[in-house]
């Protein structure tokens, strides 16, 4: 299994490099540079000479090919470059934002799994019942809610009106600050998990081996415990993995809304300031995280399902 993990890690490298190249090329066709955007935004007054000096300082006056080779060279040594804005290594900026984002992602997935999976299970065990109807209506609604609007409404209700929870910010990193953003971010994966769980349980319910289990004289509860749950789990697990990736992506909006000091806020801020090295760094870290989570899910699935080989 270790060799499988190792192999999967090796496979992730070309994808990461391809993403890096893609992002690099994307930003090298940029019409404006960091320097000129500083000027356009009216943040600083700069003359053409100052712009040229800045471009030279960041090496932006060199041809694209030269910069590309240099950039990839840096990446291979795990150097993400230097921020245009703060002149700090990108690694530092990302490192201090990583933990809050991970906290948020894990908390919202935990919320989604803890409610979505049991809900889908209950719905599937009584198809057509009121609990099935309600949970599936709730699920499709949850998928249709804009996260930042949901966040805004939660903020208005629980923070500004009722005053139970802080309205925004990281605070001292306590659970209180985490609750609202995690719910706003977790509702969509919750809805999707409920639907996937329901569908996979229903599918397995009609499987031949479940009929065998019933023919053994098992109670429905035991059929679920001994035969249904684990089989459904394998399918649900894959959805969890994919959702983890998309949660990190969606976190940008929620982080921005709740002024959460995570990777997403950093990314959005850097995009508006055209702080390209930071943007590239953030995207690479997000992609890396996505690949790692999916690898983890595949390994877990393989330990549960003996039919999946480590290939």
């Amino acid at each position, binding site marked *: 299994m270790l060799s499988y993990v190792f192999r999967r890690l090796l496979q992730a490298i070309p994808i990461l490099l391809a993403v890096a190249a893609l992002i690099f090329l994307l930003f090298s066709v940029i019409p404006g540079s960091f320097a000129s955007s500083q000027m356009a935004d009216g943040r600083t007054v700069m003359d053409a000479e100052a712009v040229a000096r800045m471009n030279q300082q960041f090496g932006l006056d060199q041809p694209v090919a030269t910069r590309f080779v240099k950039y990839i060279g840096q990446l291979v040594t795990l150097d993400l470059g230097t921020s245009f804005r703060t002149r700090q290594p990108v690694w530092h900026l990302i490192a201090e934002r990583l933990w809050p984002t991970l906290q948020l992602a894990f908390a919202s997935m935990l919320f989604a799994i803890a409610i979505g999976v049991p809900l889908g299970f209950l719905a599937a065990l009584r198809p057509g019942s009121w609990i099935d109807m309600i949970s599936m209506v709730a699920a499709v609604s949850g998928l249709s809610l804009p996260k930042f609007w949901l966040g805004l409404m939660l903020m208005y209700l629980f923070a500004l009106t009722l005053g139970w929870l802080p309205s925004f910010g990281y605070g001292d990193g306590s659970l209180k600050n985490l609750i609202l953003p995690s719910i706003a971010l977790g509702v969509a994966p919750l809805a999707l998990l409920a639907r996937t769980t329901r569908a996979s349980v229903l599918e397995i319910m009609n499987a031949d*081996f479940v*009929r*065998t289990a019933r*023919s053994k*004289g*098992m109670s429905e509860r*035991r059929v679920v415990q*001994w035969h249904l749950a684990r*089989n459904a789990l394998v399918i649900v697990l894959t959805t969890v993995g994919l959702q983890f990736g998309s949660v990190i992506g969606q976190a940008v909006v929620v982080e921005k809304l709740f002024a959460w000091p995570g990777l997403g806020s950093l990314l959005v801020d850097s995009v508006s300031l055209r702080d390209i090295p930071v943007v590239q760094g953030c995207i690479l870290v997000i992609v890396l995280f996505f690949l790692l989570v999916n690898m983890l899910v595949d390994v877990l699935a393989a330990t549960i399902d*003996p039919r999946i080989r480590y290939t």
Partner: protein
Amino acid sequence: MSGEALLEVENLRLDLIVGARRFPAVKDVSFTIGRGETLGLVGESGCGKSITALSLIGLLRHPLAIGGGTIRFKGREIQNLSAGEMRKLRGNAISMIFQEPMTALNPLSPVGRQIAEMFVLHKGATWHEAERKAVEALANVRVPAPDRRVKDFPHQLSGGMRQRVMIAIALACRPDLLLADEPTTALDVTVQAEILDLIRDLSAAQGTAVLMISHDLGLIANMCARVGVMYAGRLVEKRPAQEVFRTPSHPYTKGLVASLPLLGARARHGRHKLKEITGVVPAVTAFPDGCRFNPRCYARTEICVAQDPGETPLPHDGLVRCHHHE
């Protein structure tokens, strides 16, 4: 009939429920199975054999349901038992083997555990004892190296081996009745014979009665003392196996027997083509009026279309359902 009746089925009716309408998928089916006896049920696919078997252990699921008749097991009516009461019988006193050994076992569970479940469920064994008994059960169904095989997952076993595991599960609690629904259809021909031998030997040794369901008349002839022939949800002929083959009475049975390649038949009767029955079994929702076989029958007359034939008793506790039986 040998011994006292173990299972008595009377006028069983199984309904297919479509909205508010109920179509009789199986109607007026009656038969008995004595202790230790083997009864065969033959017919084309879709004639109601499998759902008859499923109804006997209460495993019919929507849109199918028992619509009438009685099922008596050891003298006790079981068609209306509560779910809990039925569960005590199921697997314990009546067990079942299914057609598809590929999918009938849980792919994520070692086969040993799937056998062991039976001892935990019905014999109150601990998992530890049960796992040990599972090894014995696997040895019983002639699986080599059972102590290692119990740890295997279904996908690691061949179709024949999986069906052996299914038999081990079904016979684990020494049931009185085994329902075998096309147990060898999905298997290679060479493996088929081994599996049938296994079922015959083990059931004989344990005194287990068998309801053997197959579309294969030859197989039924080998295994069973008495044979019931089903067509479109009705039992059209029921007689001792020898007689069914020697002097089939119902036109459908005749067709089945004539379509059977018999070894040495050419020597006796000269060259002749195997006969087939034209047409297909009608859908449950579109059974014809009168005799259900009439659209395909060579002996059809007006009465066959107008009137449903009743049961005519034949010698040796047999019966036939035809206006023109011989």
